[in-house]
Structure formats: structure tokens, C-alpha cells
């Protein structure tokens, strides 16, 4: 059986009503699987790639563009200081696990009433944009990923960091209600972190640390609401 080319499937995704391969796709499990994968990759683009790369794409065309993500970028250093002050004065809450190894993760959300640092368990709009800030005393091969209510693991960042670093780009949440936990790990490399994350499954609310990872790590739980 000759399957439609990738380009024809792209046209099909773009406008199924004008698709020349509609009848084939309806009866072809392989093509339906390919389309499902393509849709997931498109969703990955919208969630992770678009927010992380938009500023660079726009750079040559606009001198300055004020967006929620840019607001987060500008606010991050001040918000980082505020978050530190809150930790110093209030002390870590019972879910906080970020102090070990001098490693901390803070997330900032662009909300209708302004940018704010998120606390563990905070509720945010399901399609909010987030930016991340990490603090590490030692040089660190950082991995950040997220796990949603279904146990799906999404890779967000892998890069070397040291000191106070606001990570470039950002993440747009997927618009689905439910919990999502972000894990930041310093050291062991993404493959090991990813493998540990796949053991978390649907226990994102309870699992505050990635099991079996012997490295400084920090996590943050958010609740997405429509």
C-alpha cells in the first residue's frame, strides 16, 4: 500500500476538508498513528518551542515588544529577590525540598493581575506562560522537566548553569486542567532524570522528589484551572 507523503499529511492536518488523502487516512491505522504523532509534535511546538524562541524570531523586526513572557523576563530578577526574602522570613513550607545542595527552582507566571512567583500547589490558568529561575551554588548540568496528571513527561531545559540564572524563553501550559509538577535536577544528565520521571506516573501531587536520583533536586507543583 502506498501511504501519503509527509507533505500530503501536513496538508491534511492543515485543512482536512480539502484533504486529498481523507479517504485513505480513514481506513489506514498507520497513517492515523502518523497523524497522531504529528499532532503531538505540533502541540510540543506550541507549548515549548514557540514561547522559547519567539523573542529571537522577532528580534530583527521589533526594537522592543512587551509581551507577558517579556514582562516575566524583566521582572524575574526582582521577583527572585522577593522569593528569597519570602523564604528567609517565612522559612520553607512542608513541601519544600529545594535547599539540599544549595539548589532552588522558582517559577514565575504571567497572570492577569501581573507577574508573580508561584508557591507549591498554587493554582494558575491552564494556558498561563511560565518562566523559570534557578539558583545553584555550584556549576550544574541542569535538567528541568514537567509531569502532568496522566504521567506524561515533557522535557523543558537541559543546560549548564551556575549562580542565579533566569532561563531563556519560557513555557506555555497546555490548557488542560489538573496538576503539573516541575522537577529541576542538578547533575546526573537528562537521560537518568527522564527515566526516574517515568516512575512518577500519576502521583504528581504526592511525589515531591524523583525516585532514585541522588543529586540536588527541587520540585514545584501547580494546579491548572480553566
Amino acid at each position, binding site marked *: 500500500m*502506498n*501511504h*501519503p*507523503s*509527509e*507533505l*500530503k499529511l*501536513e*496538508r491534511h*492536518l*492543515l*485543512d482536512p476538508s480539502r484533504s486529498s488523502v481523507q479517504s485513505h487516512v480513514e481506513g489506514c491505522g498507520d497513517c492515523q498513528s502518523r497523524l497522531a504523532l*504529528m499532532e503531538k*509534535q*505540533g502541540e*510540543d*511546538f*506550541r507549548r*515549548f*518551542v*514557540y514561547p*522559547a*524562541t*519567539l523573542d*529571537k*524570531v*522577532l528580534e*530583527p*523586526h*521589533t526594537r522592543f*515588544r512587551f509581551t507577558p513572557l517579556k514582562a516575566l523576563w524583566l521582572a524575574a530578577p526582582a521577583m527572585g529577590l522577593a522569593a528569597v526574602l519570602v523564604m528567609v522570613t517565612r522559612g520553607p513550607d512542608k513541601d519544600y525540598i529545594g535547599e539540599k545542595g544549595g539548589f532552588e527552582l522558582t517559577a514565575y507566571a504571567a497572570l492577569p493581575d501581573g507577574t508573580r512567583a508561584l508557591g507549591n500547589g498554587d493554582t494558575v490558568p491552564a494556558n498561563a506562560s511560565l518562566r523559570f529561575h534557578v539558583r545553584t551554588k555550584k556549576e550544574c548540568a541542569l535538567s528541568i522537566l514537567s509531569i502532568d496528571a496522566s504521567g506524561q513527561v515533557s*522535557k523543558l531545559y*537541559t543546560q549548564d548553569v551556575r549562580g542565579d540564572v533566569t532561563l531563556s524563553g519560557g513555557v506555555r501550559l497546555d490548557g488542560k486542567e489538573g496538576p503539573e509538577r516541575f522537577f529541576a535536577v542538578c547533575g546526573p544528565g537528562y537521560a537518568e532524570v527522564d527515566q526516574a520521571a517515568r516512575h512518577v506516573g500519576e502521583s504528581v501531587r504526592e511525589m515531591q522528589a524523583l525516585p532514585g536520583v541522588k543529586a540536588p533536586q527541587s520540585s514545584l507543583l501547580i494546579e491548572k484551572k480553566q
Partner: protein
Amino acid sequence: MGGDHIAELYRQWGPAIYRRCLRLLHDQEGARDATQEVFRKALSSPEKLSDPDLALPFIYRIATNHCLNERRNSGRRGETELADLDMPSDHPDFPTRRLVQRVLSRFDAKTQSIAVGVLVDGMEHEEVADALGISRKTVSRKLQRFLEHARKYLERSAA
């Protein structure tokens, strides 16, 4: 063109570019970087991005050329081998497809795009011609030459 219009075009066409780059590079971070580069190149012809009938073959062409170029460069740097192009092993053309993987890097950029389009993506000659902005005759001629040279190359390798 205003920033908002560019952002909207990027949101519209970015997924297709990202998928194409993922397929050719097999690396999420590489595909992420390539996607923004490809889109920035595509912005040199904004009128094509605004026309849905023209946009898809246009970005497909730029993405294919860019990512094959990335693969060539990373191959030269010793970072990756070309042998990881995504080819289903149960396809009837599988032996030919394996041939493509082994010898692709020895050919010029346009021939590579044609070979990948026909032998990897399973596109018809006319579709490749349309996507790459060349004649169908050119596709046939370059593909024929590619296959002849590829077979000779493999025979020499085997000898």
C-alpha cells in the same frame, strides 16, 4: 510587517517546520534551533507565508535544505551519522532507502533534497518538483543520476 503578524505566522507555520526538522534531525533541541532559523529565512518572502497554498511547499523546501545542511555540517564535525534518517523497515523500497542513507552525504544539496523527498518521504516526482520549485524533469534526471552513482559507490565499497 509588524511583530504581532510575524508571531501569528510563526504560530501557524511553526508546527510544520518543527515536525520537518524533527524528522530530519531526530533531535529536539536541534529541531528547536532549526525551526526558528528556518522561519527567519522564510520571512524573507512574507507573501508566500500569507498564502496557504504556497506556504507549505515553501517552508518544506527551506526546512529540508536547512536541516540537510545541518546534518552535513554535524557529520563533518563528527557529531552524528546520516544513518538515522527515519525509514520504515517494512516498506517495499527498504533496500533502496538504505542505499540512500549510506550515500546521501556524497551528493549536492539539491540532489539530497530530491532523494530524501522521493525515497525517504515517499513523495511523487511531481510533488517533489512542486515543493522544491524545480521541474519534474529535473527531479527525474537528478534522481536517476543519484541512483546510478549510489549503486556504483556501493559496488566499489563492496569490492
